[in-house]
């Protein structure tokens, strides 16, 4: 058993949990959390794929890709959350 | 070799404090007791772990950085503990003993 096997399966499970959550969750904020789980799962796969048995050093390209993915995800999250705030405010105004 | 053993036992004792803190967090009845258990055990546990790791460090710079980390984590956890307690008090949470 090697770490890449363990964490690879971890990543796949996290991705699947996020995917199901994104499709099934009712709450708006929770769906954002679910999507975030998916992105971490995808990150796991790339990091695991870059791993090499020590003492060999890992492949740096997937690391760079995951960093890019993290920044992209925080941007998307910020926009989704802004939409949620706006929508909730509009709905609260409509209720009054 | 002796240093290794001392360091390892310090880290182990630190870990015990963490476990105690976690048990307290899960088992204590109200928010203030939980905070007490958590912050006390956390602070002490972290100090012991940091000290143990510092003994294993290669250079003085590393020791310095470990101590810095310990200082800031302790500072942050104390502030967080205070904030939680303060918020709980303002919301009148402490009156409810159930």
């Amino acid at each position, binding site marked *: 058993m090697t770490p890449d096997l363990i964490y690879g399966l971890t990543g796949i499970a996290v*991705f699947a949990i*996020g*995917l199901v959550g*994104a499709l099934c969750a009712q709450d*708006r904020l929770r*769906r954002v959390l679910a*999507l975030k789980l*998916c*992105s971490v*799962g*995808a990150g796991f*796969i*790339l990091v695991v*794929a870059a791993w090499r048995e020590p003492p060999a050093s890992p*492949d740096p*390209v*997937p690391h760079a*890709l995951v960093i*890019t*993915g993290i920044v*992209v*995800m925080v*941007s*998307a999250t910020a*926009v*989704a959350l802004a*939409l*949620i705030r*706006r*929508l909730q405010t*509009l*709905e609260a105004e*409509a209720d009054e | 070799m002796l240093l290794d053993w001392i360091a390892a036992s310090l880290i182990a004792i630190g870990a015990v404090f963490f476990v105690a803190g976690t048990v307290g967090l899960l088992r204590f009845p109200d928010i203030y007791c939980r905070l007490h258990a958590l912050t006390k055990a956390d602070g002490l546990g972290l100090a012991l772990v940091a000290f143990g790791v510092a003994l294993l460090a290669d250079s003085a710079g590393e020791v310095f950085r470990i101590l810095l980390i310990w200082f800031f984590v302790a500072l942050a956890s104390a502030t967080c503990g205070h904030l939680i307690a303060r918020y709980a008090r303002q919301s009148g949470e402490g009156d409810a003993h159930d």
Partner: protein
Amino acid sequence: MNNLMSLDPMTLALFLPLFGAMAAFIAPRAASVIGLATVLANLGAVGWLAFEIRAAAELITPLGGWAPPLGIALRADGLSVAMLALTGAVGLLVSFSALDALRDARQRQYFWPLWLLLLTGLNGVYLGTDIFNLYVMIEVIALAAVGLTVLSGTREAVRAGLEYMYASILGALLFLMGVGFVYLQLGRLDFAGLIAATPSAALSAALALMVVGLLLKTALFPLHFWLPAAHANATAPASALLSGLVVKAALYIFLRLSTYMPLPDEILVTLLGALGAGALLWGSVQALRAERLKLLVAWSTVAQIGLIFIAFARAGQVGLVESWKAAALLILAHGIAKSAMFLAAGRIKDEVGHDIIRDLDRSAIRPTLAQFTFALAAISLIGLPPSLGFIGKWSLMEGALQAGYWHWVVATMVGTLLSVAYFSRVFAGFLRFDRMQGALAEHKGWALADLAPLTLALAAISLGLMAAPILSFIELGYPFGAMP
């Protein structure tokens, strides 16, 4: 400037809109001027690129001087330039109409940077050769497109925008997971690596993840749930961009991927075609039931995307060049005609004050030119000769007939009849006098804003006459893999 001389048109097509977007954001007062100038310059760069492609058939620029797979190369061939030209030309005309359609200063101030970023992303997709790079590009597109969707700020638009955002992020993440599996198997991410790959379990998983992600982004039935509300509630220029251009980016990536990584099984190809037929029927039925004009147009997009997937299914595993070309033609035709139609619908709503289909009529304040434009665009979307849509449908059905795929022919015919039916609901109103309801705003006559959609609609019709040169241009550089 020696520096500028050594720039190639592909780099220019990427950086022009990017700098334009930044300039328009920094100087909101001059945003419209900067925006128009940028879109014009972009079209110039694309024209230059088309000129070069006619001679060279294929252009490749390894950015940073690092050859793939380590670096990322920009590559243009006939198909990508056709998509760039579609984006540039439709974008220019939509930009013109945005000058008139966006009267709110705040809307205008945000429209231009977002649209120019969207243009950057679209150009990047059409020039991309690296699947991770494509992932980043579709995220650029997604964020800019969501920003444009909610430009009007109404509750419906924001709600639709949020659904769109969820679908976009999820689609992109599925694609990213697919990228991870490609790396796992191949250790590289460029198109050349995909072409050279031999099938394996990990690659099948990767293909499945990427295809589902793209289908979600391109809104193929039953993953279309986010599209109608988003496209119907955006302001008219935004709707035109979303429906005419944005949906095409994911379609284009799908087209590229499925030529490079053929679907492993004929059943999957048939399944895609069946989903396309489902989209054609469901979208048409919903368009028949829609009460608002823009909603009808949005549902017609769902149906038309289904039609394009039927063409894909026809192309299938063996990769018949004719069917790929039919799909490409249908993409172009839909891009032009649908943006014309959304702009015209926006003009009608603007003039009449509402877009309830039941109450549209040939009253004194009728926006004649917009109605005319709408009808012209519908001709191309229905697929009557000599429009571009007609040529696309014709080559689709011709290919299907030759191969004996009767079911696809039947599906296409039914879809065409349904499209005649739902567009007739609108025309019927245009031709009637008896629906006048109360006093409405004063007839404003023809506006300059009618010019852009009219040009687009006329192009959608007349380009059908130039189908042969367009087809031979698309084939430059062998985008469909007919030749090595």
